[in-house]
């Protein structure tokens, strides 16, 4: 475990007070988008985390939905409204379910991983769409949360929720960043390069994939809780494969270079979406598709490679060695 903070971590930590401060200055609608995209952004970074191991999850919406529905159901059936408890419950649900599913999914790679994650998320989609107690395809509404017994009202409630979204979201990003820089995180990159060699070197690829999967799922579930509270509504669309596809899109567009890029990418996409849908609702997907194609063709490492060319990424010897091996391969 590294003790010192690197640049990304310092940036993430600095972002907390900056975002909270911006919450008081910026117009309400931008603040709303920041809040919403922090929720979905957490799912995007968990997709990105899996991509580092070469695993494309086409069903990350599953845990996004589990988080949202857990929070909603805890409020609806158990009367829980405390934000911290909701976050805990959501994360716990994501953790428990992904831990169990992980035993199945860790055996799969490449398109089979994509397909199976998709299948599992569609099972939940079908289940929720046909459960009338949970509002079928319409979903249901969430009450506004309280904070350790404190229940603010009006403007105050909005700011409180905004602040309560920023802090856990950025801390989760920090956690995933730490994970990717830890020895276990680097095993993930090695799996992407050549899994058999990883096993010859005496490391269990299954274990690494399982840990990555559970971590990504837990963070996605937290994202789901925050997103659901921000919108005050959940519905089965959260786990439809088209939603999961958007998270993959964000990760491709932003690139897997840094944990901040998908977070930022989500926000940009959210803003573009609002305008695109307003101006021309029927060409929105056409734009997304074209951008995605162009990114894959011309910027295979995503937009982040524009900000940080790969030569300056090399900072630690460990990173350098992985890069060298990549060059000799290609």
């Amino acid at each position, binding site marked *: 475990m590294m003790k010192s903070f690197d640049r990304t971590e310092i940036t993430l930590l600095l972002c907390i007070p900056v975002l909270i401060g911006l919450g008081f200055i910026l117009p309400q609608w931008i603040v709303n988008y920041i809040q919403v995209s922090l929720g979905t952004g957490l799912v995007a970074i968990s997709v990105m985390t899996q991509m580092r191991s*070469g695993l*494309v999850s*086409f069903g990350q919406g599953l845990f996004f939905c589990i988080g949202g529905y857990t929070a909603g159901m805890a409020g609806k059936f158990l009367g829980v409204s405390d934000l911290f408890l909701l976050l805990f419950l959501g994360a716990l649900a994501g953790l428990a379910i992904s831990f169990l599913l992980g035993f*199945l999914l860790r*055996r*799969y790679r*490449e*398109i*089979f991983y*994509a*397909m*199976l994650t*998709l*299948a*599992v998320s*569609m*099972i*939940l*989609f*079908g*289940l929720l*769409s*046909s*459960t009338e107690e949970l509002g079928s395809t319409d979903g249901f509404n969430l009450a506004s949360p309280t904070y350790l017994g404190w229940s603010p009202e009006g403007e105050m409630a909005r700011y409180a929720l905004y602040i309560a979204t920023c802090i856990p979201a950025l801390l989760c990003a920090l956690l995933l960043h730490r994970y990717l820089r830890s020895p276990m995180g680097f095993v993930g990159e090695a799996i992407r390069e*050549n899994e*058999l*060699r990883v096993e010859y070197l005496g490391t269990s690829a299954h274990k690494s994939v399982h840990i990555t999967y559970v971590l990504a799922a837990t963070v996605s579930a937290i994202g789901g809780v925050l997103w659901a509270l921000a919108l005050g509504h959940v519905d089965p669309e959260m786990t439809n*494969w*088209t939603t999961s*596809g958007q998270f*993959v*899109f964000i990760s*491709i567009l932003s690139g897997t270079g840094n944990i901040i890029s998908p977070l930022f990418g989500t926000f940009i996409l959210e803003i573009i979406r609002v305008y695109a849908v307003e101006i021309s609702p*029927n*060409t*929105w*997907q*056409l734009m*997304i*598709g*074209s951008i*995605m*194609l162009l990114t*894959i*063709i011309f910027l295979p490492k995503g937009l982040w490679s524009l900000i940080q060319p790969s030569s300056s990424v090399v900072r630690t010897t460990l990173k350098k060695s992985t890069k060298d091996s990549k060059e000799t391969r290609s």
Partner: protein
Amino acid sequence: MLTAVAISLDGLGFAAWLFLASVGLTLIYGVMRILNIAHGGFYALGAYSAAWAIGLYTQTGQTIALTYLIIPVAALVVGVVAGLTIERGVMRYMYGRDEVLMVLVTYAIFLILEDVTKLIWGTDSYIAYQPAYWLGTIEIFGIPYTIYKFLTIGIALAVGLVLWWGLTRTRTGKLLLVVINDREISSALGINVTLFFTATFVIGATLGALGGALTAPEISVVPGIGAEIIVMAFAVIVIGGMGSIGGAMIGALIVGFARALSVHLYPPAELFSIYIVMALVLAIKPYGLFALSEGRKI
């Protein structure tokens, strides 16, 4: 007894529909190693063009019989135009890239096709019931069935047979098997690999469009049918083993009967029974029932 008959007939009907919708997908994967999400787009294009053409034609008041010609023609036109454009315009620059990346490329194309469909035909629903209605119904143990359904089952069988025959009994098919086994060697032997790829992609796209066109008379054609079918088609070909035509047939039967069973015995399960079957099969046979085994490469 009645339920059993209903389940088996519905199961066959679903299976025929699923097979037609997914056989092009498994063909493209088998030859090109591309899991083509854009297949859902071809399906939707086929359904829209057929429904639109049938609507135009029936307005003229001519005999309905000719609509059965419109369906394959619409599918062929759409499949060839869209398939050629996409293969020549985008896909050929991507060959040799990572399989997962190809999924993302075809996903992007799928998104584009969705909106192209909306731009051409708008967001209203199209209904072209005439061909299904005109053939009438027959009663089996007192339950009425449209003859059109049996027609689809027949076409599904015919498509399967033709593909099997084409792949295993003709010279072209045998050359294609060589291409599947080793692209480099086959191109060194003088086989035109590029042509095989283009042809396969166009045939796959046409089959997808045909699946949509044949379904159009039985449903109301609305935006989003492509997204719905593609996940089901994935389930079918993953169960059967990707790239295997026979596997797609078995997969379609399994999924079709799973769906028919849930529709008749426990309707709420209809939406997810397919994926449960898929997850179960994959948990036991990780690469599907009829997948060719591949050695791990160091």
